[in-house]
């Protein structure tokens, strides 16, 4: 099997894998970064969302060979101490229910706020619509994104 070097959470990691292996499984099974979750494997649920070169992407739909050039950030690397404004807002509002989709939600929300300091409800709909929450935490997610935006802008 060929080996590849990836930059994940600012650390270079070398792994051997088949070229079509999705990033999701490299993260979870090979590197033990299990904060990124499997939900559908088809790019439909957003549970596996990570950042690639500063954009939210679905790690289940990206073969390892497509993410060799840039920086990958997972939930484990979003902030050093769990103190990203989105994570703080999530804690303040006690957002998760089962919690399984929440890494994906947080990564999608962080991406939104990095590009749009003050998103409207419509912006939130567009950015978050791809991340399914089976438990129905959407109302708190919306509030938490507004809260994080207010904090960031202060």
């Amino acid at each position: 099997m060929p080996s590849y070097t990836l930059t994940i959470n600012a650390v270079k990691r070398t792994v051997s894998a088949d070229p079509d292996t999705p990033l999701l499984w490299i993260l979870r099974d090979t590197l033990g970064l299990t904060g990124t979750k499997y939900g559908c494997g088809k790019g439909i649920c957003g549970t596996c969302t990570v950042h690639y070169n500063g954009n939210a992407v679905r790690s289940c739909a990206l073969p390892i060979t497509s993410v060799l050039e840039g920086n990958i950030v997972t939930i484990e690397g979003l902030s050093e101490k769990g103190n990203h404004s989105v994570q703080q807002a999530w804690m303040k509002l006690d957002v998760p229910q089962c919690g399984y989709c929440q890494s994906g939600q947080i990564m999608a929300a962080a991406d939104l706020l990095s590009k749009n300091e003050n998103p409207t409800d419509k912006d939130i709909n567009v950015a978050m619509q791809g991340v399914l929450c089976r438990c129905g935490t959407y109302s708190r997610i919306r509030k938490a994104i507004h809260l994080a935006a207010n904090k960031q802008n202060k």
Partner: protein
Amino acid sequence: MKSTLDRRTFVKLTASASGALIAGVYLQSCESEMIPAAIHEFSPLIKIDTDGWVTLIAKNPEIGQGIKTALPMIIAEELGADWDKVKVVQGDFDEAYEEQWAGGSYAIVLNWDLMRTAAAKVRHVLLQAASKKMNKKVSELSTIKGKVLHSKSGEAMPFETLLHEASKLPLPEEVEFKPTDSFEIVGKNTSQVDLQQLVTGKTKFSIDVKLPEMVYATVLKNPVFEGGVGSFDDTEARMVNGVIDIVELDNTAYGGRLLGANSPNFVNGIAVLANSTWSAFQGARKLEVVWDTSGTRKENTDGIFERFHSQLTNTTIERKDGDIHRARKAEASNFEAVYQVPFLAHIPMEPMNCTVDFRADLCEVWAPTQNPKALQEGLIKLFGLKPEQIKIHLPRIGGAFGRRYYVDYAMDTAILSKKIGKPVKLTWTREEDIQHDWYRPASVQKMVASLDESGMVTGWQHILANASRKTCLGREGRPAGTEIDEYEFPAGFVPDLQFEYGHVMSDVPLGQWRAVGLSATVFAIHSFLSELAILHNMDPIDYFLKFLGPARMVPVVGDYEFDAGRLIEVVQKVRHNSNWDIPLPKGQGRGFAATKLSGSFVAEVVTVSVDENENVTILRVDAVVDCGIVVNPSGAKAQVEGGILEGLSAALYGEVTVKNGAAEQSNFHDYRWIRMDEVPEIHVEFVANNLPPRGLGEPPLPPAAPALANAIFAASGKRIRKLPIL
């Protein structure tokens, strides 16, 4: 502080069934910290450390319902602990804990007294010890924030100073509970205990378990319900990098389709073992299988519903009050309507998975299960193990909704681990999850009402026909009390009343889905009541209140009475909160529904707009809930919002259809669920009272669908009698 507690090794001196006093000493494993200390284990659930930290065991499976926070809150309250110095640890499966399962919204109902009793016993010995040391009367002492307080003098002693004395005292048999008006922890918004871990991705769900030497696996099952494996060619699958082995799973070699009366065994198929999940998935895709479908019914959805319809006239009577035929003759008019609901999948975000390390001496399991006892019984049945040879860990679960009441996926895993002699983590694909669910039963329901001149109901007939979750898997016989039973609303409210059940045998695997039977019956009951109101030009809420009559206890079955007053209160409150009596612009409408479930009362109003193309937008939902004391308002509100969104999602989109004996849906593209852009504003109010807390996971769900259908009628004049709507 918390971390030092982790590093200490605790040595138990004695074991205890429930509530017996145990004092423990432990060895320091952290060299830098040489101060001798002791953890005192007062009960299986409560340990107090000499540094003042209280460790509480969260014994029930956490599926997102917040129980890992709520049960310890109850203990901490009764104990008088300081919540900021409480450490919560998830318990493994252990018979000593009692009632260790998640289902029927019963966790709080069953554990309220259990948790309070356990804590009150420990409080009792702490008070006794303090009384001695302080030389004060026990009756003048109380516990608060981790201290025993003598309020007259202001003198206080922290728990940790009383441990030595207290642990010598016997726990009392009888205890008195704290008055509810003195609560400090219960009733306060409390962030869930795993919050920090969850937002940083550190929580280990079952699907995240990794053990040394562990092999990864997945399964491919016969898509045709009740089929088997005919023959298969695994040449290509074995050529996939990382594939280790391919194993056929045949339940006939493991006791057949059932583990217990209401506990299905695994579905026949083929497992692929590999050195990563991805390789296992790839291997499964390369399998060439000829499935055996002999002896299966090869059903289609249309045919199933036709059979339901024809069973409406071939029923058993589940309840009979008075004589509906007398009512029918005497009354001014009769009205009937037929409603239909589909099969539904559970689709928890964490797909089915399990990890088993089947060793010679111990079968160790990490399972996302709502029902560890059924898992234990399954392993006993399949492998002839003794209970002491089984250890079940209960990691946090990524949603359950009833699916994980069944333990089929754990049986698969145990077989594989035993066979290969290594730990195995089995992960189902989402496709397998949707195609091999235990679906919410579809049903057809016929409602007939006899009405007097004023339009009020004097006769009520509710006939439900379906395939039952108690007879699927070839279990013949009359399934008593499954989808409609003698407790159904409005039993006790109408003099001439009859409930009937028409039973159909089917291969479709069926199970409990959040709110179980009421997820279907409340849709028919409340759609029908609103239809009756409109038929008589009455406001649906006015009509319903008139239907309920005065606030009183209504006898239903035996000692069981329905408190009409509590239902009336939530209805009146939701009427007010939703601005029900203020007219809406054209194209908008409000719908109402209510229910009682697991001891809780819920009333909901849904507001929608419907455009010329019949596009429905849900604008707002109002819910008022009376579940008695609200243990954790933050978690409780989340449960209500989640239940409402689940009810709305299912009503709008939820549907599994069957073709040639197999489910037609396979992933989130064809099993649609509500997304951020479709979520309405949701307003939730809890009725404040001091009644014992009741269930909350399920009660908010059933009214959502009929309230939505009634709102669509109000907005557009279009009556929905068949779900899903879109």
